[in-house]
């Protein structure tokens, strides 16, 4: 469990990005907080920069949409899901439990490389 930020750091419709084994983003949809891997599985782009709507985030580069609760892409160009992580809020602090399965990364990207 990682202490990530204060809940006040993530306004509705926004995301907070932090580095674990790979970058992870915590999104605030207004209804709930969701944590997913931040890098689009199609090509190197930060999903935290994407548009949040209807429980999904749209990649800012090629508009691949990912369901924030399942990590599944809704259609092309992304094919692989992003990992989802458990979010817990306690005393206004946001904690994330990192998913133990390996991350799906776009081609040409390696874990640990910025």
């Amino acid at each position, binding site marked *: 469990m990682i202490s990530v930020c204060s809940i006040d750091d993530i306004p509705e419709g926004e995301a907070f990005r932090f580095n674990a084994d790979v970058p992870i983003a915590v999104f605030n949809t207004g209804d709930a907080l969701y944590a997913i891997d931040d890098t689009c599985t199609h090509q190197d*782009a930060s999903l935290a920069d994407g548009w949040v709507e209807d429980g999904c985030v749209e990649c800012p580069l090629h508009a691949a949409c990912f369901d924030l609760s399942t990590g599944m892409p809704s259609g092309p160009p992304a094919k692989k899901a992003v990992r989802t992580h458990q979010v817990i809020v306690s005393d206004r602090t946001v904690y994330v439990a990192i998913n133990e399965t390996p991350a799906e990364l776009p081609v040409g990207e390696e874990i640990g490389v910025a």
Partner: protein
Amino acid sequence: MRSIAVVGASLAGLNTARALRRKGFDGTVTLIGAESAAPYDRPPLSKEFLAGTVDEADIGLGEPEDDGLELDWRLGKTAVRLDTGDTAVELEDGSRIRADGIVLATGAGANPFPGALGLRTIEDAKALRERITPGARVVLIGAGFIGAEIAATAANLGASVTIVERARVPLSGPLGAELGAVCAGWHATNGVELITDTAVRSVGEHEVELADGRVLASDVVIAGVGARPHVDWLAGSGLRIDGGVVTDSQCATGIPGVVAVGDCASSHRPFAGRVQRIEHWTNAITQSAAAAGTLLGSPEPPAPRDAIPYFWSDQYGMRLQFAGQRAEDDTVSIVDGDPASGKFAATYSREGVLHAVLAVNNPKQFGRLRRDLSTQQASVVALA
């Protein structure tokens, strides 16, 4: 409809074949490709693939799920004639593929420049990779997006790079003079010499002669001077050709059972109010769904956002994103950041309506502006 032949096995063709299956078509789908390589993504050819950070397997467009599509692959086969009377495609090797429906997705090829190399295919990219070595003197003809991306990659590989551009300001067509000049400035800051307002007279074995008499020593000369659609083979087919194959907004040509998609299609664009041939990657994706729907009699208009042209370019570590289309009398405003800082967003407006947006290293603002653009344009098109 029991059989469909897709002519062109790149981004547009492959995605149309996938869309046909997704929409439930269970007849024969024959996918014909002129290149012998399995389908691959072209944008990395001027960037990561040329730089050597990704390989052939990395840029493959194929997915494990494609095996389930049961496509009849015909790679390394060039189509030479379309018989619209019998809806059949004739291939270079003399074979003939008859089908109830035809998808034209033959793409475009790089315009040649005598004596210079070009970049369009993976084979082109491999040839350039071998020649662009540290210290090599590389001359680019044309400072458009392809030229600029190759220049950036070559400079990063340690080559000594010069770009020769005929226009006074590179990229002034798509971006306008003001912001075209901003992006052109990245060449100098990265040690690449940019010569503008100058044509290339001739390319020799070890030198390039310019129209003003200057001579540049060169080891590698690469032209990035636009592309032209692969539509010559359709002459006499009865299809209307205007740049590309003329279609309506849903990819239907004038001939029933024949659709055209991607770089080879001159499609009606509600956004522009006229027919336009668009070479963007995203256009090929968007049109493939429309073409499949048209062929199967279940049209599927694109989402408003997808109806607006969008492209991106990565060069010198800068990510440029552009949506819409600009015109000469647009008012250009910097709405976020500062061009000098390398991070900004700009809008192009006419009479208070957004017509295009540009962002550099600013994907978040770009996403917002692109939404505003599609909302405003959707209401403009609805009123028209």
